[in-house]
């Protein structure tokens, strides 16, 4: 149903009368502020929702300033009818007139309350009791009526119960999908309630106290805890029983084992005792044996001593006899020896005389040879001394000549250097000096400078090098001064003079007239030096130690000759006797003399050795005699002592036969006791004492260990008995059984609860899924209308609505999800308008009413505005849109010209 005409008079600022014609689709009513756009909308709203007889503040707000009765007429129509309703809000005097005209031709006119009610029914509005109706009573109007300043609010908040049911009816009718109504909601609620008793919001089984699953689980835990504690006790009991059985078995074994060990120990002890007895007996036997052996040894010793003593006596008698015989024989030999001693003395005297004679001859010959040699040596030294003296004189003479010559080699070398320097300087001066050549044309005296005068004959030529200004006086005729032009000639000349001066000074110092003189003297010096060196060499050869040494040697040689000549005289020769030459005969004589001396000396030595040997033999013989006599005396003394001892022994221990009897007796006793000892040793070895001791120790230790173990086992058994018979075990069997039964019951209950919870979860999920899918299908017509509008506004945007058509969230690409409350102002009015249009389109299937928008797009930017204009134009194809604005330019082109209403013009007209 669309509004075709609005007539207003005396309504608020619109005193009117005002008549506005509207068309289907988009209508834009514009005008400046306070011209009455919102008042116009309120007037239309008042007609649609209020009884004409309203009173109080609501009506008072309609009454214009200055008074008057507000009156509003609407003309509406749809495809089947048209109606005109006029309401005069005159308080109790108010009136309503409704004229209904069917397309089919029917007509009806109603007045008053009947007209109000009929119109309410058509509008889907329920009458209010007193005052203005709230949104809940106004059907779809709150949704499609956008008052100024409310465009940015959530449109779903304007869906009242009636509208919601209408929407559901329409969507059910369109989709054929049923939501189930209140019965289904009740089922949801109860299932959810049950579900919440088992599950948390996160979908986990709730373990909070007071909830059935948690209580069942706690009961089971408690029962299991009790059961577990009892089982632990039971296991301990069983373990103790097992231990007790083991300990009892061990005790039985030990009780059986200990007597056996004791028996074994007794046997071991008997064996040890037996060994001890044997050892003791053997000790005694050993003592007796030792005693017997000692006695036997003593008897043996005594017998041996007796035999030895008798042998010693016999030997002593023989020794005495022998020593006496030797003494007698020695005395005879000594006497004989002493008789031959004089013969040896004579022979020695003869030999010594021959030796003295030979030695004197040999000495004389040797002295002769020595004096001859000394004389020859004296002569040779004397000769050398003469030669040396002559050479000494020659050297002295040469040295004196050398001293006289004065120039030495270094002087010559220096002179040569200076001369060479003077020559060089002179050559350089001459090379640089002017060369003056004078040719005498006639005889003439030419004086050069102040010193040189030359007489020249005609035709002669003389040439001079002139290094400084030099006058040439030619006779009397002319004086020519030659001045050389060289710059350094003066210096060069000076250097020549210095060099010459140095040379002259050196010549004077060396004592030479010139360099040639010096060089000649040096040659002479060389020759003299060679002569002196030769004399020196000869001197050195003749007298290496010098002349004095030769003189000393000559004196010594003379002394030697004199001494030898004196010795010759001493040995019987004459001082002058000397051989002239030491020849072969002399040497033969000398050798023979030496041989004779050697032979005589040998003979003397032989005679002396013979005498000495004889003396030694004599002393030996004498000593032997003395010794023999002494030995005989000693042997006799010993013999006496032995004889005395033998007599004493016989007196003390018996004669030899008795000694033998005793010895045999003790020997037999020893043998007998040794046999007894051997037998005891064998018996003891058979017992193996060490094994017996070890075996005994093992038995003692084994028995002690067994007894210790038994004591420990007894203690352990007592402990286990105490544990096994403790009071808390009584009734444990029943308590364990009860606990197991209680645990089983609790387990069954928990199993039931778990199964119930699983079934409930499945039921809840199945219901939620079914409901979600149903609702999705149910809302499809609405979403089919809404989504294109949203896409036009914000491409990619989706929206989620809940069962009550509330906006849950928007989702936009690149932005994410937003609830309506988080949208910006512009977005809120844009999205709100789009949602309203979509809902209005759905609702228009049953009841199409104009969508009224009073300045609803005040925050929208120009870009979005253009998109909204497209959306409004689109919506206008199925809905009547009445837009009030003070900015008509923003809606330009949206409505047809005749549907763009300038309210101000309308008021004027």
């Amino acid at each position, binding site marked *: 149903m669309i509004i075709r005409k609005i007539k207003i008079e005396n309504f608020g600022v619109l005193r009117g009368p005002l008549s506005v014609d509207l068309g289907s689709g988009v209508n834009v009513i514009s005008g400046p502020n306070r011209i009455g756009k919102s008042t116009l909308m309120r007037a239309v709203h008042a007609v649609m929702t209020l009884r004409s007889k309203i009173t109080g503040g609501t009506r008072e707000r309609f009454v214009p300033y200055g008074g008057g009765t507000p009156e509003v007429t609407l003309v509406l129509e749809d495809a089947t009818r048209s109606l005109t309703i006029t309401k005069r809000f005159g308080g109790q005097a108010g009136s309503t007139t409704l004229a209904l005209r069917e397309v089919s031709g029917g007509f009806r006119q109603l007045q008053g309350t009947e007209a109000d009610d009929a119109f309410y029914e058509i509008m889907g509005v329920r009458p209010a009791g007193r005052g203005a109706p709230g949104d809940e009573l106004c059907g779809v109007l709150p949704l499609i009526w956008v008052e100024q300043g409310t465009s940015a609010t959530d449109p779903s908040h304007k869906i009242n119960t009636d509208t919601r049911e209408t929407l559901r009816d329409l969507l059910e009718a369109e989709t054929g999908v049923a939501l189930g109504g209140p019965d289904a909601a009740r089922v949801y609620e109860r299932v959810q309630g049950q579900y919440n008793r088992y599950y948390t919001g996160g979908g986990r089984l709730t373990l909070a106290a007071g909830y059935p699953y948690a209580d069942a689980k706690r009961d089971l835990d408690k029962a299991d805890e009790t059961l577990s504690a009892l089982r632990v006790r039971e296991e301990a009991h069983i373990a103790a029983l097992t231990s007790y059985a083991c300990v009892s078995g061990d005790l039985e074994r030990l009780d059986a084992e200990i007597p056996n060990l004791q028996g074994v120990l007794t046997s071991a002890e008997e064996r040890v005792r037996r060994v001890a007895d044997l050892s003791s007996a053997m000790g005694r036997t050993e003592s007796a044996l030792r005693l017997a052996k000692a006695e036997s040894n003593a008897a043996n010793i005594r017998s041996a001593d007796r035999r030895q003593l008798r042998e010693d006596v016999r030997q002593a008698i023989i020794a005495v006899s022998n020593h006496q015989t030797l003494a007698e024989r020695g005395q005879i030999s000594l006497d004989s020896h002493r008789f031959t001693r004089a013969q040896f003395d004579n022979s020695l005297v003869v030999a010594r005389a021959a030796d003295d004679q030979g030695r004197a001859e040999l000495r004389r010959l040797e002295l002769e040879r020595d004096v001859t040699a000394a004389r020859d040596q004296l002569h040779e030294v004397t000769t050398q001394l003469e030669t040396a003296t002559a050479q000494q004189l020659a050297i002295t003479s040469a040295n004196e000549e050398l001293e006289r010559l004065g120039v030495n080699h270094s002087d010559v070398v220096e002179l040569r250097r200076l001369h060479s320097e003077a020559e060089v300087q002179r050559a350089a001066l001459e090379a640089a000096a002017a060369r003056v050549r004078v040719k005498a044309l006639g005889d003439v005296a030419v004086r050069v400078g102040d010193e040189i005068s030359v007489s020249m004959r005609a035709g002669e030529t003389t040439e001079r090098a002139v290094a400084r200004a030099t006058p040439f006086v030619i006779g009397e005729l002319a004086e020519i001064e030659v001045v050389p032009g060289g710059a350094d000639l003066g210096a060069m000349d000076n250097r020549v003079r210095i060099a010459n001066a140095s040379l002259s000074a050196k010549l004077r110092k060396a004592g030479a007239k010139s360099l040639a003189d010096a060089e000649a003297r040096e040659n002479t010096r060389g020759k003299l030096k060679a002569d002196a060196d030769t004399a020196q060499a000869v001197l050195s050869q003749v007298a290496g130690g010098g002349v004095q040494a030769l003189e000393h040697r000559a004196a010594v040689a003379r002394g030697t000759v004199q001494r030898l000549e004196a010795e010759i005289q001493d040995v019987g020769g004459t001082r002058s006797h000397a051989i002239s030459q030491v020849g072969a005969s002399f040497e033969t004589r000398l050798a023979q003399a030496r041989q004779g001396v050697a032979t005589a000396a040998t003979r003397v030595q032989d005679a002396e050795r013979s005498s000495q040997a004889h003396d030694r033999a004599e002393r030996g013989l004498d000593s032997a005699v003395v010794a023999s006599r002494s030995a005989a005396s000693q042997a006799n003394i010993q013999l006496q002592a032995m004889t005395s001892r033998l007599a004493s022994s016989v007196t003390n221990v018996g004669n030899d036969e008795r000694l033998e009897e005793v010895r045999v007796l003790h020997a037999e006793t020893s043998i007998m006791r040794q046999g007894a000892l051997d037998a005891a040793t064998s018996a003891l070895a058979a017992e193996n004492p060490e094994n017996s001791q070890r075996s005994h120790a093992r038995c003692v230790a084994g028995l002690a260990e067994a007894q210790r173990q038994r004591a420990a086992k007894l203690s352990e058994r007592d402990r286990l008995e105490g544990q*096994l018979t403790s009071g808390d075990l009584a009734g444990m069997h029943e308590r364990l059984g009860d606990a197991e039964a209680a645990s089983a019951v609790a387990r069954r209950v928990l199993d039931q609860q778990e199964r119930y919870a699983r079934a409930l979860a499945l039921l809840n999920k199945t219901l939620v899924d079914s*409901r979600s899918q149903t609702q999705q299908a149910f809302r499809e017509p609405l979403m089919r209308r809404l989504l294109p509008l949203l896409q036009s506004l914000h491409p990619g945007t989706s929206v989620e609505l809940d069962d009550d058509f509330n906006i849950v969230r928007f989702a936009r690409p690149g932005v994410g999800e937003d609830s309506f409350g988080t949208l910006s102002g512009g977005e809120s009015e844009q999205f709100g308008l789009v949602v309203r249009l979509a809902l209005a389109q759905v609702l228009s299937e049953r009841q199409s009413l104009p969508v009224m928008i009073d300045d609803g797009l005040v925050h929208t930017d120009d870009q979005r505005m253009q998109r909204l204009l497209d959306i409004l134009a689109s919506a206008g194809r199925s809905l009547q849109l009445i837009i009030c604005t003070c900015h008509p330019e923003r809606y330009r082109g949206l409505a047809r010209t005749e549907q763009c209403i300038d309210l101000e013009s309308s008021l004027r007209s």
Partner: protein
Amino acid sequence: MIRFLHTADLQLGRAFRDVSGDRGARLREYRLDVVQAIGRVARHRQAQFVLIAGDLFDAHTVDDRTITTAAHHLSAIGLPVLVIPGNHDPGGDADAVFKRASFRAACGDRVRVLLSQDPVPLLNGSAVVLPCPLLSRHTLRDTTEHLTNDFGRDVVPNGVRIGLAHGAVIDFAREEEGATNLIDANRVSVAGLDYLALGDWHGTLQVHDRAWYSGTPEPDRFKNNDPGNVLLVELDGSGAVPRVEKVRVAHTRWVEHEATVHSDEDVTVLSEWVGGVESPTNTLVRLTLDGALSFEGSGRLDTLLTQWGNLFLLLKREGEIRTAATAEELAAIATAGPVKTAADRLAAIAGGATVQAGDAALALQMLHGIAAGGVA
């Protein structure tokens, strides 16, 4: 003639893992009461003594009240009671129950626990009991191996010879590797026994013309091997064939039942079976169920099972009843909308073979309950 009672395996103080609380206590009380029942039989049938072939107690750690009560009941029989320890109460253990002061204080002179193999003459030498006590829980030896034809004749040369032992006869355990406490059944002949009173097998069983297991006098498991008896044995003299009579003394019955339910009629049949159980409050039932029921049928069965669980001393359920919603039950959840969609999906899962089938069936049942206005 000699007349005596032979019993074994009372296992007094036994705890039942599947039975908790008061019912478990009742079961233990019944086992004590059966001692009194044995005493009544003994006196009524003029038995001259009672033999207990091992396992009088279930464990050494039973509580003192059980021991005292048992000893008191045994003493109250008024006849000689000869007891050998078995593998549950071996006599050699340090904490052997027979050594407990509470037992010794209450059992009096007539109750004798035989911890040695020494022959025990009875009835002025007209009979001799040859005990074969178990001193440890397990032994690889035959505890009767000391029984020869001469054994005990120095004590009682010509009396009736009665062996008393606890263990499995070798024929039983032939298939069991490493079996312990074995007894050679031929010992009866070898040892010249007139009767061998055996314990360990919980059902009444004759293993030789002169050897019997009395079985436990009070059943303790779902095994149908004729437990719950004592044996009244009569012997006319040495060499005579014993006459053995089973006398029932048990308080409880252990019953197994299997049923398949697919309909209300099946549930009704099961209910009728339960109604026919004799002395249900002293009966323990192992009920194995199979099949599938509608929500309604399943709910009804659950209600009945709860009632039966309260009725029987024990109702042990095994097997599983699947729930299979009928078309009406599914429609009752929702006819349209997401709830119906969910119900259809759960029904599909429940009808499949995945691991979630059971959960889905329960979820569907819960949904049905919620949609019907109840709680899940």
